[in-house]
């Protein structure tokens, strides 16, 4: 597909680019970057004057709930939600039903995405068979089928020996290992962060140590195995510190955090708000600050949403029995832009966190506007003000703690392989 994006501020950290220029896409790939580009007659054009043009945003951690839990989300609706949030690619976690631990299920996702998805969908397979934490899944075949990483997301691989072997094996075949890091014994029956708010509400708390201990184990295992590991959704001061120290001594560890962890504290749980129930739980103000610092100093490599759609019946219940997670694809970019507005990040860092770095971690040929690259582009209006309304969310589920929030900034065009798949 062909497209000319004219006069936008093109920010592409993959080639150190930040300048006003045009982007010409032909046959789905970037053909030319420069000022005053001309395109063949009939080429569709976008006037991006005053807008920001970036490599397509990538959310490396979403749940599309397909197969098996389509009443929450499916590949079509999830991809619409992604496009509306400015994402051109998403990586979807394997805790579907059945789980993605075989070539057959991975192929199902890829084929369904080919016919129904607006954006690129890259499945992540399980680390262990059935996601049960007992023996390794067939990672080679998962990779061959098109999986871009492995994870037992939603639960940790509790057995350290098995995790060691997973890291070694995955390194050999060149597939990313993504760790959901939690010490389940410490989590116990906890349903929110352990702190003053849990004390006041009389809810069982989850201590920060449950995350830190598990993150530390992954770091030591990665160091020992000489293999890379990616830590999903970090949320604590301690996780950030452990990863910062590990990086400083050369351990191949990367990590992500989610917008809610740098935006909300456990105060949001007050009133027993099940839309603030997630795992890991919303933490303290110091943890929120640590996420912002970690994003700014490069400790945290990526912003991912952990987009976790749930049916209203699964959230409109007593707090203890409500399921964990929130939808995030459509609020991620504006919540992240807030960090730019606060002066904590610059736009180049933001684009690295939301596009270039996730591509690198998963080994995708995306996250860049270099000539010859796939023409996935996000055009952002950083000053557009809008209100988050359930009825206007493209996701099938509406479980967001940000409903009613007035946000600033959003994607106004989402372009996949040169084709506009979303326009605000």
């Amino acid at each position, binding site marked *: 597909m062909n497209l000319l994006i004219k006069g936008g501020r093109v920010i592409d950290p993959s080639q150190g680019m930040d300048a006003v220029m045009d982007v010409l896409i032909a046959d789905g790939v970037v053909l030319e970057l420069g000022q005053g580009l001309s395109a063949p007659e009939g080429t569709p054009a976008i006037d991006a004057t005053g807008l920001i043009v970036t490599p397509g945003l990538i959310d490396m951690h979403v749940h599309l709930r397909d197969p098996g839990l389509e009443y929450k989300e499916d590949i079509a609706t999830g991809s619409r939600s992604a496009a509306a949030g400015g994402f051109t690619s998403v990586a979807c976690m394997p805790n579907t039903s059945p789980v993605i631990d075989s070539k057959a299920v991975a192929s199902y996702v890829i084929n369904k995405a080919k016919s129904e998805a607006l954006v690129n969908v890259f499945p992540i397979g399980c680390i262990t068979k059935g996601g049960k934490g007992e023996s390794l899944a067939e990672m080679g075949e998962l990779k061959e089928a098109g999986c871009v990483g492995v994870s037992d997301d939603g639960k940790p691989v509790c057995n350290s020996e098995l995790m060691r072997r997973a890291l070694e094996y995955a390194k050999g075949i060149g597939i990313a290992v993504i760790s959901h890091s939690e010490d389940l014994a410490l989590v116990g029956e906890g349903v929110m962060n352990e702190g003053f708010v849990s004390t006041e509400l*009389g809810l069982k708390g989850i201590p920060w140590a449950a995350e830190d201990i598990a993150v530390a184990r992954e770091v030591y295992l990665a160091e020992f195995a000489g293999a890379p590991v990616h830590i999903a959704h970090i949320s604590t001061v301690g996780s950030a510190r452990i990863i910062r120290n590990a990086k400083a001594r050369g351990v191949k560890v990367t990590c992500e955090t989610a917008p809610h962890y740098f935006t909300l504290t456990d105060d949001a749980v007050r009133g027993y708000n099940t839309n603030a129930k997630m795992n890991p739980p919303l933490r303290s103000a110091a943890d929120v600050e640590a996420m912002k610092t970690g994003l700014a100093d490069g400790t945290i490599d990526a912003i991912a949403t952990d987009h976790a759609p749930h049916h209203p019946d699964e959230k409109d219940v007593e707090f203890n029995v409500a399921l964990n997670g929130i939808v995030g694809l459509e609020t991620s970019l504006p919540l992240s832009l807030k960090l730019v507005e606060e002066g904590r990040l610059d736009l180049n860092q933001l684009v690295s966190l939301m596009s270039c770095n996730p591509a690198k971690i998963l080994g995708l040929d995306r996250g860049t506007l270099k000539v010859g690259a796939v023409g996935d582009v996000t055009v952002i209006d950083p000053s557009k003000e809008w209100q988050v309304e359930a009825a206007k969310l493209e996701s099938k589920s509406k479980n967001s703690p940000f409903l009613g929030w007035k946000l600033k900034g959003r994607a106004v065009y989402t372009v996949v392989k040169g084709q506009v798949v979303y326009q605000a």
Partner: protein
Amino acid sequence: MGFRHKDIIALKDLTREEITLLLDTADSLSEINQRDIKKVPTLRGKTVINLFYEASTRTRTSFEIAAKRLSADAVNITASTSSVVKGETLSDTANNLLAMKPDIIVMRHAVSGAHEYLAKRVSCSVINAGDGAHEHPSQGLLDMLTMRQKFGRLDGLKVAIVGDITHSRVARSDIYGLTTMGSHVFLAGPPTMMPVGIERLGNVTVCKDMREAVDQADVVMMLRIQLERQGKTLLPSMREYSRYFGLNPEVLTLAKKNAIVMHPGPINRGVELASSVADCDQSAILTQVENGVAVRMAMLYHVCGGEPVE
């Protein structure tokens, strides 16, 4: 002043004036409990549903008697016989009950916040008879009434609360109520049962040693240790708990001479309290139970709008 709340979910939500009003009302209603004919027509024609998702004898009976003494019609529903076992959600249960037009739902539920959830969804009044480890406002009120009767005031009292603070809804309601009314609360218990930031709930001091909490106390409130809940990680043994956190006659001598001993019940004799302490002259445990009926009458009465008592 009147009582303006539709529901009574938490003592945290009540002002000093509102608590005083409830206690004053309970005081005046307690006279009814002394009559030969223990019944007034105040809530005649009102329907109270006691919806108990957790086992309870004294609280449920106390609410039932309170309703009946005010001539309300009281219906009891317990979880083992309810639709919960058939998988019905709390929301659906609430809607079904509401269709029967009750005026008040008195609920006990194992989940903190269940009452807040229910109260937002029903038009009738909701009274919290205990939710998880959150609050137990009728217990807090009856504790305060008992103390006020003994000392004539709540202002400036030193109240020691000893035991499993983390899992205690009684402790939270007592702390909110007492500190709102001007008492100073001293907490003691095993460190594994002392939740983060509890001292921030009000005028609360966390003590390292039970003796420090009991020293010069006006009231010593012993909490029930839930033997079934402690598992293997919170305590080495009941024997050790009893030795360091049980109230025996010797520790009680540290308190003021006229101090009273309280316990929300049921007591584990020999664990939280030595039997001799439970039954001593200073024990106000049965007075608490007696006051429970009057306090619950006051709560039912005020959420119904407080019509004149005949």
